[in-house]
């Protein structure tokens, strides 16, 4: 660990063990129907009663099924992060910049004061901020400064993705990314979404970064599959958000060109998730099962043959692909079926799967490569069994709640025994 890191940790005011209280500052509260909320739900379950209060800056279009109702909470509305532009080109960018500036100086400052006041009243000794989107990035430092307490940050994804998706103008992006860097640098500790992110951010921002990866109760895990369900069928599962559109499209096109067959097996795709958009003028073999809770999702996935996880090949998303970690991978590995990863070699899930030899990897967008990798997996029973076994092992070693609990304790600078 660099000496600078040590000094920062030592200088930071610490309150001993059990008496420590945290203000959770987040845009999604602990809940059971959003991925981020599910992770927070698990993390909050580790904390002793009374040690946390929650200030949520919620996008009012979302309807989270809140858990942990015992937590002292306040919810305020999040300012719009996707601002419509009424003018084209630079004029539109200027409009976006001015609107962002106003939000920053007026709305976010007001929310920061509210959050700080709430945090002080709750007696919080530190701010635990989930840094996602421009509002939370701006709030992180402001609230910690107003409360004069240490800042602990948690990052799901690099901020560039959010800013791009919300079409934030480039001038505002620069300022927001500077705020992000400042929040990271000032953080006493950082909970990263992947091992790669922890390593990268520790090097970039000089703060102690601990990987706190979306994990699951080991009791939910299924035994690894020893063979495919049938000799004439290949069932492929996809659960969760569908963010890699080009990759998904190529998967479906592969099946279309191959008449929905891989080798001698008929292909069936089952999708679990909040939404799915499809169109085709040829026969398709896709079944949409809608959103299911985690236990049910794992149950459904464990009855399929192969589980599909895609990440972006587009170099525009290189940072996200390298640093993020999809929570669906945890679910897949818990389901005990081999993962078929479709994305670039530098992607963090690809590295994880390669390291543990726990998935079939397809590093090419070409449909012939997708076909060949799937055929290799479907036609080799030894490989199939080995990948399922290794995947299950990787899950139990790295992605269960006990590992998450240990890392979370380190993130909050608590002893493991201080957690539930």
């Amino acid at each position, binding site marked *: 660990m660099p000496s600078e890191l040590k000094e920062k940790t030592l200088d930071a005011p610490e309150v001993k063990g059990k008496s420590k209280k945290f203000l959770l500052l987040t845009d999604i509260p602990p809940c059971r129907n959003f991925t981020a909320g599910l992770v927070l739900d698990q993390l909050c379950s580790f904390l002793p009663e009374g040690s946390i209060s929650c200030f949520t800056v919620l996008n009012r279009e979302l309807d989270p099924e809140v858990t942990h109702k015992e937590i002292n909470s306040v919810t305020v509305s999040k300012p719009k992060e996707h601002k419509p532009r009424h003018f084209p080109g630079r004029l539109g960018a200027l409009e976006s910049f001015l609107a962002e500036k106003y939000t920053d100086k007026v709305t976010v400052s007001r929310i920061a004061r509210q959050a700080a006041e709430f945090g002080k009243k709750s007696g919080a000794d530190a701010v635990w901020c989930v840094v996602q989107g421009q509002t939370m990035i701006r709030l992180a430092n402001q609230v910690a400064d107003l409360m004069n307490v240490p800042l602990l940050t948690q990052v799901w994804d690099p901020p560039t993705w959010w800013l791009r998706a919300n079409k934030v103008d480039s001038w505002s992006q620069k300022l927001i990314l500077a705020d992000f860097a400042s929040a990271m640098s000032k953080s006493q500790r950082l909970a990263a979404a992947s091992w790669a992110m922890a390593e990268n951010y520790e090097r970039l921002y000089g703060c102690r970064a601990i990987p706190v990866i979306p994990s699951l109760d080991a009791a939910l895990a299924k035994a690894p599959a020893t063979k495919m369900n049938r000799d004439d069928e290949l069932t492929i599962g996809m659960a969760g958000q569908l963010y890699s559109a080009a990759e998904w499209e190529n998967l479906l096109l592969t099946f279309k060109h191959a008449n929905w067959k891989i080798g001698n097996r008929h292909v069936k795709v089952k999708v679990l998730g909040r939404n799915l958009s499809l169109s085709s003028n040829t026969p398709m073999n896709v079944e949409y099962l809608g959103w299911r809770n985690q236990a049910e999702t794992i149950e459904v996935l464990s009855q399929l043959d192969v589980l599909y996880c895609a990440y972006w090949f587009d170099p525009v998303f290189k940072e996200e692909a390298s640093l993020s970690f999809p929570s669906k991978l945890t679910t897949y590995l818990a389901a005990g079926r081999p993962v078929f990863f479709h994305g670039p070699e530098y992607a963090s899930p690809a590295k994880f799967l390669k390291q543990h030899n726990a998935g079939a990897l397809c590093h*090419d967008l070409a449909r*012939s490569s997708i076909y060949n990798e799937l055929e290799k997996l479907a036609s080799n029973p030894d490989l199939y069994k080995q990948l399922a076994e290794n995947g299950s092992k990787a899950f139990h070693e790295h992605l269960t709640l006990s590992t998450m609990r240990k890392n979370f304790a380190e993130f909050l600078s608590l002893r493991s025994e201080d957690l539930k």
Partner: protein
Amino acid sequence: MTQSSILQVGSTDEEGARFNGQDLHKQLKARGYQSHHLVWLKTGNDPDTTQIQTEKSARLQQKIRRIEYNSNLQSLLYPFVLDFPMRRQFQQADLVHYHLIHTGYFSLGALPMLTRMKPSVWTLHDPWAMTGHCVHPFACERWKIGCGACPDLNILFPLQKDNTAFLWKVKKHLYQASRIDIVLASKWMMKMAEESPLMSNFRLHHIPFGIDTTIFCPGDTEACKEKLGIPKGNVVVGLRANANDFKGLDYIQKAFDHLDIDIPITILAYNQKGHFDKFLGRYQIIEVGWLKETSIFVETLRACDLFLMPSTAESFGMMAIESMACGKPSIVFEGTALPEVTFAPNGALAVAPRVDELVSAMKHLLVDARARQALGAEARNIAVQNYDFSLHVDRMERLYEKALNDSGKVKSAAQKPV
């Protein structure tokens, strides 16, 4: 001891290193010449290769490209080589060898100045230098009489309006003011150049391209197949998948469509991907893209049982001789440089440019393993005897010497490279 200094000029270094001047530059250096390669875009790490492009010039190039396209001009407005006389590498060179200069960075307008300053050699990689706009005129013969009334403006490089007569005249004017030794890699190109009024001012030399036949050589086909995940018993057909006007992709696709044969086949496609999706499940498709690493490329060639190169226009056919050197028979179309370059019927099968002819030749070689092996062995011998890179460099050396001699800039015997 002073050594002759040769400067190669081209579009890039790594992609097409075997014919774009990069390998030649390295060989010349190994033979004791002072050699340098000036390229528009450098992707490799050779210390004696210098990139012309800067961030600013790359932006300007895009603008000029648009202007040229809109005004129906080609390779006339780019200013990037006008500073050559100020460049150390150009100043120090005894001779300059131009390669691919028509890819959008070089102005032909600079040729008279540059070729009068230094003895110059220009390798023509296709007939563009002899036509009003196209890379291949196919059946059109208007390039012999000044172009104009162009039958196909969409062929590479396309024009919006027929400005071919003007462009032809501009080339003639500029060539007349230039002094260049022209290199043509095939007799087919040589014949064309001899018939071209534009080339009348130049000395023409037939020097085939070369490859390192110790690297491009036969190997363990079965092991290479296994490495690529090709099942035992599959017959592997190598080919270049490129959807341009003259690589014959359409013929290849149709041939596979019509191929009615009970043999498991693997299509091993180089270059572009996605052209064989319709055959997924019917044939094994392996698309390797454009392989930079020569050793990997050679391994994939070794995995092939035969190679298809049914170009409808081809000035040389580098991939055909690469596969020949690896002991693989090729199938090519008549009417291009390929039958001559492959020494068909000894090193390849040359057929009329028709789908049924292609299918029939494919069937013959797919079914008859002995015929494949015999033709492949002969192809290997032909490649070694005619296309070894050392032969190519020997021939180039002799040409350089002659050009330097004639210009009075030749080094004395004592000063020749060792």
